């Protein structure tokens, strides 16, 4: 049995760390040949805009991971296995659970396929397991925040960040799916994300209602400043990728003129987010953010209202595709 393995892997250039991790894993496994923007559109992961009542930074990750992550890769023809166990309250069969995960993860790594996991380091974000060393008892990991993070001890799997959830996604196989089918499935998902209630938690709203919740939080000054800055960074980046992804799709479907309209609308939304990020730039939690002035808050909710209108227009076009 091979006792050590490392795979060269690079995470995708995205603020949404699930996307950057899954993209990195897919590229390393040679399951995806396009860029991160096309992955953002066709997997559907660029569309959801989930906002908690006080704009908590957790908004970005409050969804059903197993189902959503499985579906995201399924849309582009990748069959994967997702597994999530919340380790609170304590899991009595923890050792068995970790041992089972280890077996599956090592099998995947030996087939040159990195594994997506929740928080490989102390940062509450998704990342990748890119190798292992049985003698040292560690997984080699890749994280968004560090170039060369410390490895993860086998027994710390699920516990690295303090938000103790053991979540991993293993890539199994890929089948060729027509681009048309991928796009159709993704656009249907985009509409659902825009119109449906967020089922995970009553404090969180999705899509159009997500914008309403965000605007309300700003108008009533009942918001978490770090959360607002983080959401602007993540959702702004998603929209920039959506614009780029839809632009690229025009080359695949030259007859579908509406793709350009969708791309233009998302570009306008992305530009507005860029302006909002100038007003409320992201700063890490260790640096206290300055209070936003009332003028800045006013500018933010005015811009968000514009974004909501533009994205509604994009959804109207998507709905008749």
């Amino acid at each position, binding site marked *: 049995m091979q006792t050590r393995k490392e795979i060269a892997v690079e995470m995708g250039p995205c603020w949404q760390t699930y996307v950057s991790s899954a993209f990195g894993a897919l590229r390393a496994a040679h399951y995806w040949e396009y860029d991160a923007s096309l992955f953002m559109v066709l997997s559907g992961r660029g569309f959801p805009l989930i906002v908690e009542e006080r704009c908590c930074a957790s908004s970005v990750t409050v969804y059903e991971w197993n189902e959503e992550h499985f579906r995201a890769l399924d849309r582009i023809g990748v069959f994967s296995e997702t597994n999530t166990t919340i*380790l609170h309250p304590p899991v009595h069969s923890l050792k068995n659970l970790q041992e089972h995960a280890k077996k599956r993860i090592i099998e995947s790594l030996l087939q040159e396929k990195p594994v997506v996991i929740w928080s490989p380091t102390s940062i509450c974000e998704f990342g990748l397991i890119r190798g292992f060393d049985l003698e040292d008892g560690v997984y080699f990991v890749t994280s968004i925040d560090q170039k060369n993070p410390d490895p993860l*001890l086998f027994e710390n799997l699920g516990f690295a960040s303090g938000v103790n959830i053991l979540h991993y996604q293993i890539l199994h196989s890929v089948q060729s799916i027509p681009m048309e089918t991928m796009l159709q499935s993704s656009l249907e998902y985009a509409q659902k994300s825009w119109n449906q209630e967020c089922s995970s938690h009553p404090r969180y709203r999705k899509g159009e209602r997500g914008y309403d919740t965000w605007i309300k939080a700003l108008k009533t000054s009942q918001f978490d400043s770090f959360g607002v800055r983080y959401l602007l960074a993540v959702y702004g980046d998603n929209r920039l990728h959506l614009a780029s992804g839809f632009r690229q799709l025009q080359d695949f479907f030259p007859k579908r003129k509406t793709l350009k309209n969708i791309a233009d609308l998302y570009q306008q939304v992305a530009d507005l987010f860029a302006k909002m990020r100038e007003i409320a730039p992201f700063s890490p939690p260790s640096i206290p953010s300055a209070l936003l002035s009332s003028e800045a808050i006013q500018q933010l909710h005015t811009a968000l209202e514009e974004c909501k209108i533009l994205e509604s227009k994009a959804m109207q076009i998507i709905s008749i595709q």
Partner: protein
Amino acid sequence: MSNLHRIQWIDKEIRAQRYPNCHEISSHFEISYRQASRDIEYLRYSLQAPIAYSQENQGYYYEDSAFVLPALYLSDEEKNLLSFLAEKYSTLHHPQGHRIAEIFDRLIIEREKKKAISKGPPIISLPQLQSIPCYHHIREAIQKNVKIEIEYTNKNQERRIRLVHLYQFLEKYNYFYLIAWCELKNALRIFRLDRIQSMKTTSDGFTKDNAQLQIYLHEEDPHFLALKPYTANIKISQESIPSNPPYECVQISQDIVQFQFYDSEKFIQYLLTLPSFQVQSPKWLKEKVRERFHTYWKLHE
């Protein structure tokens, strides 16, 4: 190009009312947009610049033109103070204390040479920095086994006075914590040091219930304490074995000490303070140390 140089350029542009923005900064210095944003954040948060964004002019301006960038000059009094602090923190017998001491030393030396700081001013995470004075007092109280009265703000921003019996320190997830018996809750609790607003040492002693502590560590809060430390076997010559190391350790043979640590960066910094050492295991740590020396070696070539 140093971050300091860019900060000076941004300041100059703002004063000339040219309203620089992140796009212009990134293209002028050929740096990423994200790096340019960080420079603006540094100006705003670390240097307290009253910087605001003008929608009309699509760039930044000072809300208060009286603001000036901090001078690089240090008075003798300031140098003495930094030197004293460096000395103070170096005696903390803790990697974080050593790190701060090194930073203070570097500030004094580099500013003496009247050189700009090549890698930009040091960035110290605020919670750690706030914790250090507190750490020093609490350490003393733990040694004396006396109760202390703390004014503590919990995560829900509720501020209360609590009388606590100090048990032990804990450093996890880049924060210092204190495990103590809280008379208010009549139970063991974990307190984050940077949330202690003030403290008063009392003369009342107490008896530690170590059995209770063990139960607490293993059962009461398994999630907080679930993270297992890394274990490293380090070969150290007999005469260099530290008497009071800042890490949990056990001597497993004549010249091998087994350490437990959470952060390799800090642990390597500690190892570098020893006269000599050799990492026996794990392999990944050995590689990190090798990389570190390789970097140093390249710097001296």
